[in-house]
């Protein structure tokens, strides 16, 4: 039980830090840190959505960045066509992600294991090429979002602090949802399928339908992250869907601790801060990051959450 309390304490500390960050940024006048953490919170949301299928559902999707692009392009394309209202943009982003997840999931879930990894990867790459081919929306060069989503005075996305808190609220909302899902009957079935699909099927659960539903929920959540990300960068390009992005999201989940509620958030914070830190030391930061990943895989079972658990147990 003591192990649990250490990881709980660190999690609580991190969450408090995230909530109080704008205050620090205001007091120290460090605006950069707020921008950095807005990005971290958005990608943490994406990682949390990936964790739902990967950590709890056992579906190793290597194409999760596609939803970042779909959510982002929904916002960007609507903005370009003169639809600036967030009340339209965001639902469209979520719906588009859900539809994509439904189609891709229905096809990919016919396979398992390595096939599933490769197929989700290939479909995301297809989405990347399709976006590159959209000449009307910038093609390869991407699309500038001139006006952030307009929520008619409810929240102002151009205000850094309000936007940050909107993203944080979305993150907490998604984590709450994941928590509710994981502990519901539906979530228990999905986790049962991860452990032993044949047995679950033998007791009469339609395995694929449960997994597909979970896949769609996860994709929709990640679409939300995409819509926020496009607002954060005022820009969306095919690069956001590139497969290394999906790899980044996977690394965040694993680094933090797969199948834990707050692990992905922890992973996103650590991974992106590390990236920021290393890139300030050297231009060739990936030269250190790459082997570091290898070492984490070789020696770091269970990610940061697992490590904290072990520290707690002594």
């Amino acid at each position, binding site marked *: 039980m003591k192990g649990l309390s250490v990881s709980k304490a660190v999690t609580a500390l991190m969450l408090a830090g995230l909530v109080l960050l704008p205050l620090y940024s205001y007091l120290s006048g460090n605006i950069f840190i707020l921008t950095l953490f807005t990005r971290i919170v958005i990608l943490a949301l994406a990682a949390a959505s990936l964790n739902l299928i990967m950590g709890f559902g056992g579906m*190793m999707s*290597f194409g999760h960045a596609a939803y970042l692009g779909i959510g982002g392009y929904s916002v960007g394309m609507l903005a370009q066509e003169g639809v600036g209202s967030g009340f339209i943009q965001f639902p469209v982003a979520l719906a588009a992600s859900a539809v994509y997840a439904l189609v891709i999931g229905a*096809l*990919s879930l*016919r*396979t398992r*294991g*390595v*096939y599933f*990894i*490769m*197929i989700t*990867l*290939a*479909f995301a*790459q*297809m989405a990347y*090429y*399709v976006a*590159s*081919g*959209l*000449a*009307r929306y910038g093609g390869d060069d991407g699309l500038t979002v001139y006006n952030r989503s307009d929520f008619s005075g409810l929240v102002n996305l151009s205000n850094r602090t309000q936007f940050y808190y909107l993203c944080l609220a979305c993150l907490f909302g998604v984590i709450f949802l994941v928590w509710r899902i994981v502990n519901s009957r539906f979530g228990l079935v999905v986790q049962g399928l991860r452990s032993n699909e044949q047995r679950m099927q033998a007791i009469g659960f339609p395995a694929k339908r449960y997994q597909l539903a979970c896949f769609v929920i996860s994709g929709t959540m990640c679409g939300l992250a995409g819509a926020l990300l496009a607002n954060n960068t005022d820009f969306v390009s095919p690069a956001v869907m590139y*497969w*290394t992005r999906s*790899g980044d999201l*996977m*690394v965040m989940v*694993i680094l933090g601790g797969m199948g834990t509620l707050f692990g992905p958030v922890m992973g996103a914070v650590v991974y992106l801060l590390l990236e920021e830190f290393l890139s300030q030391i050297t231009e*060739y*930061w*990936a*030269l250190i*990051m*790459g*082997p*570091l*990943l*290898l070492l*984490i*895989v*070789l020696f770091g079972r269970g990610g940061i959450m697992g490590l904290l658990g072990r520290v707690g147990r002594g």
Partner: protein
Amino acid sequence: MLLVVEQFLNGLQFGLLLFLLAAGLTLVFGIMDLVNLAHGSLYMMGAYFAATFAAWTGSFLLGALLALGATLVLGIVLEMSALRHLYGRDHLDHVLATFGLILFFNEAVRLIWGPAGLALPLPAWLTVPVPILPGIHYPAYRLAIIVVALLVALLLYLGVMRTRIGMLIRAGASNREMIGALGINIKLLYTLVFGLGAALAGLAGLMQAPILTVQIGMGENILILAFVIIVIGGIGSIRGAFLAAIFVGMIDTLGRAFLPNLLREVLSGAAASTAAPALSSMLIYLLMAIVLVVRPEGLFPASRR
């Protein structure tokens, strides 16, 4: 007619190159059960080595041979230092660790060769057009790629099916504990197989280098195509990889060449020119989706699975 023959040969040539890449990937997966994302990095390293060695020695052929050796050695070193420890681990671990290796290789290349791409110029005797049919000429170099790749495919087939090492490799694929118990040095065998896969990737990279520029990340896009091929062909099956690679190479090349004109027949000009680039790059993924619906295990699944 000329265009059709030319594009057909281009498709064949691209397909054969993809086969060299996919063969290594599927061999390593089939035998060591290792998912190696860094396979594309070996392809890139092959191209960089070739460009460097060719510039040093002043000879394209000598440079290519040296590059082949260098990729083989690199593959062996990589296996012994890092990847060996991943055997028997979860596939997800493989994906992450080799993802880290990709980051490392891309950055190492940027550090050593700089961010700008390199060019690998062809010797004069490979640039002449060769008459293949009356009135139809085809570049000698592309023809050479087809010949070399076919030869390698044949050697690979004979090597795996007819030699003692090949027999051990097949035995290792079907039951690794058993051949270990029979006194075969399985570690050495794995290292050899990985080195072979690396050399095949390097060969594909160095042969592609004169056609495209040698640049960072060149292995990543083509790696995804190799994945599509082994999914279509059935993981672990070299025969499947061969047929699927030719198929994918053809469809991709012919699709890009003729789809725009075909679309223009059915759609209005503007709609066709918008849809064509997106559709032709989607083509092979659509093909993969169809294969998955009909045969989830791939067209030619390896018999042991």
